[in-house]
């Protein structure tokens, strides 16, 4: 999201020209799980890319473990036993690596830790041991058997025909791509075990942009100025009625970007000032935007308390219908 945002605002390449086109929350697949307390928690479903990279990391790790055993073993074993020993280690890893880690790390393997994903019960219950076994034993069927057949068809069934390699390839492909064919990115093992892989929640609480105290988000240059100075800008009611919640939160994202260029901020400032018909043009862009954000949020939250939820600038407004159509709102370019 943030790279997209920056690209759009700073204007690299063929970024879309409107702020809204780029900054909107990306359509994220979610799974809603009701808690016994009656509040629904919304989990973000791990993407296919996360799943694949997590799995690859785990496979590499299994490979490294095997290699490690191979290097450690020669002192203890003869060469012929070494191969047998490695086969045994591989068998053990194949059966217990995923299940073991998911048991110990609450639904996570090293690969999942690195991709910040996690297995949970699809219904929101506790992740049971049975579910972990069921979802991981099917890997045998989904990945390992076709993989082994691909390498050596005779290993599974003697007299495997030559085309068994192709068959295994298609087989692995079908089950490998299975998660991409359903919106919840369920692997066959997830379907059977009743589990789902979600993004592991990362609670990060940033400073409140709307709070009275100056925030660290301010640029160093002007930080002290704001702290001492009283409010520079004031807004009238009709000026605050132009935007809705959506625009407010886009502005929040912009202000939270630490490395936003001054030029970009000036562009956004000018655009907002033009749109709301602000009399005193100019001023420090960050100070203006922060104060506008605060005033806008106070205003919208009060409206919210009264039961008026204005989703975005296009929302019909009883008190004062929006006088600008969609076309004219797009005129201001973030790249100015």
């Amino acid at each position, binding site marked *: 999201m943030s790279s997209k945002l920056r690209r759009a605002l700073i204007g690299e390449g063929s970024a879309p020209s409107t702020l809204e086109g780029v900054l909107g929350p990306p359509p994220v697949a979610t799974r809603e799980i009701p808690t016994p307390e009656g509040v629904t928690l919304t989990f973000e479903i791990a993407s296919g890319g996360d799943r694949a990279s997590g799995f690859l990391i785990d496979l590499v790790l299994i490979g490294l473990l095997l290699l490690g055993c191979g290097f450690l073993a020669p002192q203890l074993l003869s060469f012929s036993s070494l191969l047998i020993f490695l086969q045994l280690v591989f068998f053990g890893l194949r059966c217990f690596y995923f299940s073991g880690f998911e048991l110990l790390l609450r639904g996570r393997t090293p690969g999942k830790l690195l991709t910040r994903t996690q297995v949970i019960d699809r219904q929101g219950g506790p992740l049971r041991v049975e579910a972990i076994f069921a979802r991981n034993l099917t890997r045998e069927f989904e990945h390992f058997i076709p993989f082994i057949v691909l390498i050596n068809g005779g290993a599974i069934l003697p007299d495997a025909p030559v085309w068994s390699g192709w068959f295994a390839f298609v087989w692995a492909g079908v089950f490998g791509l299975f998660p991409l064919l359903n919106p919840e990115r369920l692997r066959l093992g997830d379907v059977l075990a009743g589990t789902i892989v979600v993004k592991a929640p990362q609670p990060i*609480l940033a400073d409140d942009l709307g709070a009275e105290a100056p925030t660290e988000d301010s640029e160093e240059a002007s930080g002290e100025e704001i702290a001492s100075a009283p409010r520079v800008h004031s807004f009238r009611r009709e000026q605050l009625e132009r935007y809705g919640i959506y625009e407010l939160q886009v502005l929040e994202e912009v202000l939270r970007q630490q490395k936003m260029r001054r030029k970009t901020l000036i562009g956004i400032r000018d655009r907002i000032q033009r749109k709301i018909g602000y009399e005193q043009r100019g001023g420090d862009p960050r100070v203006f935007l922060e104060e506008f954000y605060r005033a806008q949020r106070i205003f919208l939250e009060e409206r919210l308390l009264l039961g008026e939820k204005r989703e975005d600038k296009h929302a019909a407004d009883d008190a004062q219908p929006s006088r600008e159509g969609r076309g004219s709102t797009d005129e201001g370019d973030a790249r100015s």
Partner: protein
Amino acid sequence: MSAIEPRSAQFRREREARWRELEVLVQKVETRGLRSLSAEQLQVLPILYRGVISSLSVARAISLDRNVVRYLEALAQRAYFVVYSPRRTAPEVMTEFFRRSFPRAVREIRGPILLAFAISLLATLIAYSMVRADLDDYYLFVAAEYAAGRDPTASTEELRAILMNEDGDEHDGDALANFAAHLFSNNARIGLLCYAVGIVPVLLVGLLLFQNFALLGAFAALHAERGLSVEMWSWILPHGVTELLAVIVCAGAGLTIGLAWFFPGERSRTRSLVVRSRTAGVVAMGSVLMFLIAALIEGFFRQLVDDIPSRYLLAASTALFWSAYFGLAGRRSG
């Protein structure tokens, strides 16, 4: 404009300390386990969790600060798992698995397991009688490379030598090699394959199982033909009880999944699959361990015992053990 700052900012200031407190506790549990918490911390954890849940629902209604709502959502999610997850350590999980889950799961799916057993028995008998009738049918059931010299062209003496450890085996005395060779032998492979393919076509399980046990039947017939039945079963049974049982149990697990799809009963089809495959997963995981045990017997024990009575004694005691285990273990609740 009356307010100096947004209401949500005030809301946040009043509660933030509690949120942070929960965040610290959750972090601690996630990295060092529930046992790292003191008694007071344990007591306060659910209270803080409920506080955050209620903050979340208020914040969703009144706050337009997206960062706060996201933070609360993520914190509530993490705390939810900490509060509602079973609090067990790895050894507890293992003990529970062997003492209750595994035998219970096996009893739970005894229908499909019996079905698998029936298929196996039928296959063995059919192959046995066919090979007894015409020795050339042996090749129908046994692939040449698997037979490894144990086919109708071998002399009775050669067959006896293999059974009684008298041949110059290349892995002679190497228990590890025997163990491994056995683990990767036909049966363990067929067993896991049966579990795996049960997921898609039930019929394939039957077919695989049939093929595997037909092999046993043909093998038995060949030895019976030469009057080596007693020796042969003494060779097979010590590890075979465990191993063939594991194959059947595995196939039963596979059948369970297939049948759950075709006959979901009162549940929805997906739910039926979920419920049954969890049970089947436990059974399959358990039978992996049974294969390990069978390989241990084969690799380390059976090679040491040459006389027929003690081999039968070993076979009988494993049979007794497994029937007691699956019949009795984990019956009591609690």
